């Protein structure tokens, strides 16, 4: 098998594990009953209020802001950068000419630096704060390392020769049609893709499940209407 083919099949595998694995975990969460009302203060009284609360948690990290300003700053920078990068990458993964997304893609350098800065801050906190060091397992450090590796290799892809955007987009679009040839000849791109695929493979089995979890946590998802509504 050619390198291009191997990378292509790794991407297929990673996407399959990521989607099916995560769907299975979410299905498991949804199957589990919520026998009692356990909203945590400040709990809104209505469904719309709950939607607003979840939105503030997801977009602004409201509770983390109350808890620790430094963790909030690094965590928010990292996640905002990640969102920016994800949007930029859509330019490769969606078909056709996409002027807006291509504009976003052209600014991914800044996003990469912000993401890396956030991750570095989080890594320093994990190592330097004794309380966080105490609760960290090797997997917690490895996860930060993996994310940093993805971001750094990605930034190197952009500055090193060999990885032409048009060629890469053609390769990705080819994958949709089952054609795994045509991977650009750029070692940092290979590393970048492999690291990203590893992330996808571990996602459903790791703490990355906080991504669906933040939308499903009963303490935040329930409205404060227990006296009016039985479970």
């Amino acid at each position, binding site marked *: 098998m050619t390198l291009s083919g191997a990378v292509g099949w790794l991407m297929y595998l990673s996407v399959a594990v990521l989607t099916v694995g995560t769907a299975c975990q979410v299905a498991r969460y949804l199957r589990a009953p919520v026998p009692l009302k356990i909203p*945590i203060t400040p709990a809104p009284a209505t469904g719309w209020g709950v939607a607003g609360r979840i939105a503030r948690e997801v977009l602004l990290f409201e509770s983390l802001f109350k*808890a*620790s300003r430094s963790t909030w700053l690094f965590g928010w920078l990292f996640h905002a950068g990640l969102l920016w990068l994800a949007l930029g990458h859509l330019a490769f993964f969606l078909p056709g000419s996409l002027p807006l997304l291509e504009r976003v893609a052209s600014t991914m350098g800044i996003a990469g630096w912000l993401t890396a800065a956030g991750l570095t801050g989080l890594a320093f906190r994990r190592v330097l704060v004794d309380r966080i060091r105490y609760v960290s397992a090797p*997997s917690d450090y490895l996860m930060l390392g993996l994310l940093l590796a993805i971001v750094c290799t990605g930034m190197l892809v952009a500055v090193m020769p060999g990885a032409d955007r048009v060629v890469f987009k053609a390769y990705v679009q080819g994958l949709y049609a089952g054609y795994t040839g045509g991977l650009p000849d750029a070692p940092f791109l290979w590393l970048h893709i492999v690291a990203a695929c590893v992330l996808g493979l571990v996602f459903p089995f790791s*703490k990355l499940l906080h991504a669906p979890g933040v939308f499903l*946590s009963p303490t935040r998802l329930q409205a404060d209407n227990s006296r009016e509504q039985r479970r």
Partner: protein
Amino acid sequence: MKRQGGNGPVSVLPTMTPGAAAASKPARAEPAQQSALGFPGTLVEDWHQRAIGKMGELVEGSRALSVFLDACVKCGACTDKCHYYLGTGDPKNMPVARQDLFRSVYRRHFTWAGRWLPKLVGAKDLDESMLEDWYTYFHQCSQCRRCAVYCPYGIDTAEFAMAAREVMDTIGLGQKHTNEVIAKVHKLGNNLGLPQPVLADALAGLEEDTEEESGVPVRFPLDEKGAEVLLVTPSADFFAEPHVDGLIGYAKVFHQAGIRWTLSTHAAEAANFGLFIGSYENMQAIGLRIREAALELGVRRIVFGECGHAWRVAYNFLNTLAGPLDFLDSAYPVPQHMVEVTHDLIERGALTIDPSRNDARRVTFHDSCNVARASGMGGKAGGQFALPRAVLRAVCNHVYDMHRDTIGEATFCCGGGAGLLGEDMLDVRVKGAMPRMRAFEAVDEAHGITHMATICAICKSQFTKVFPHYGLRFDQVISLHHLVGDALVMRR
């Protein structure tokens, strides 16, 4: 020593000291107390297998646990939020570390990564030393939920403490204080184990005392059919100080408002210790007593007295556990808190109040953890903070709040909640009260506070006991409705 915001006057964090609180563990339940609740009397032979089985059952039966086990990213947001960590410095009292005692075992037995790569993901076996840690540290959690307010995913350590305690009960490793109390409620209807004649006698004594003090024949009815209100209050209110003065306050309010009320022998207990041990069945059995009493007495309303975790069960669970309570008057909240009753009467001008009668008192208000973070009042957001303070300000001219990082949703637990109120836990109770006491000292320094008012039986017992350890007098703890009762201008 490092400084970190968000904890008010307790801005200096403790030096982390592994094992600092390892020796503090509550007495174990005796075989008879265990079997009264349907649990094995002593540690069963195949405890490991049964514990793992029960864990799986609990996780499968709870979306909260399922999500909480997976979602934690170990960000550390909760690590400096627990009063037991701040007071003891024991790292296993950091909320995430406490959860991890459960999570690491779950990973080992229920996840792919934990089975094959335990060291990598921090998965651990449930061996004897882990079980010992469970017993110790899941009994150093008052289920106050402060950590959950700050967690980005709302992960609630109380859910872990409840689940772990239930697993331990299932294998015959129960806690004496909680299980003894629950057995008493099942048998007699209250946590103190008071039979009906003793209760009737206590209430008759209160009638005499109150008439002597106020000159008005205030009644303390028991098991009176046809009353409008069934008052369900913690049994400590019948005897203990300063609780009993709160009960006198409720009686005075009902008297002045002309509301016919009654207590019930069958449900002479608001506190529901079934919550503490995470046992749905026990919690429901205790909750159903209230429904049965209400039906038996034919009341139109159920009102709860001052009790924190009790109000959580009443406000959030009773409708589900013992409902629908549609035989009650829907014009009132079902159930209703005594503070809501008094607040409503004050708002409507139905009570004559002379706050100057409390002028010798300078009061601060302690938000009880489970009222603050696990329930509501008044039907509007933050009502559980606004209503007690509105009542307090109506009956008392000198009211000062503690630091804002230590009240409201950020309130510190008294240090005695969720079954830790035994003498065997005194060391941890005193240390766990430290963050609250630092905030009290700060407001005392600024305003010369004489009393801390509160609306929870556990808070009252706990502070009465620990105040002297901080150079205060035990009688500086006061029931909110004691202040109400003293300020009420009584008419015949």
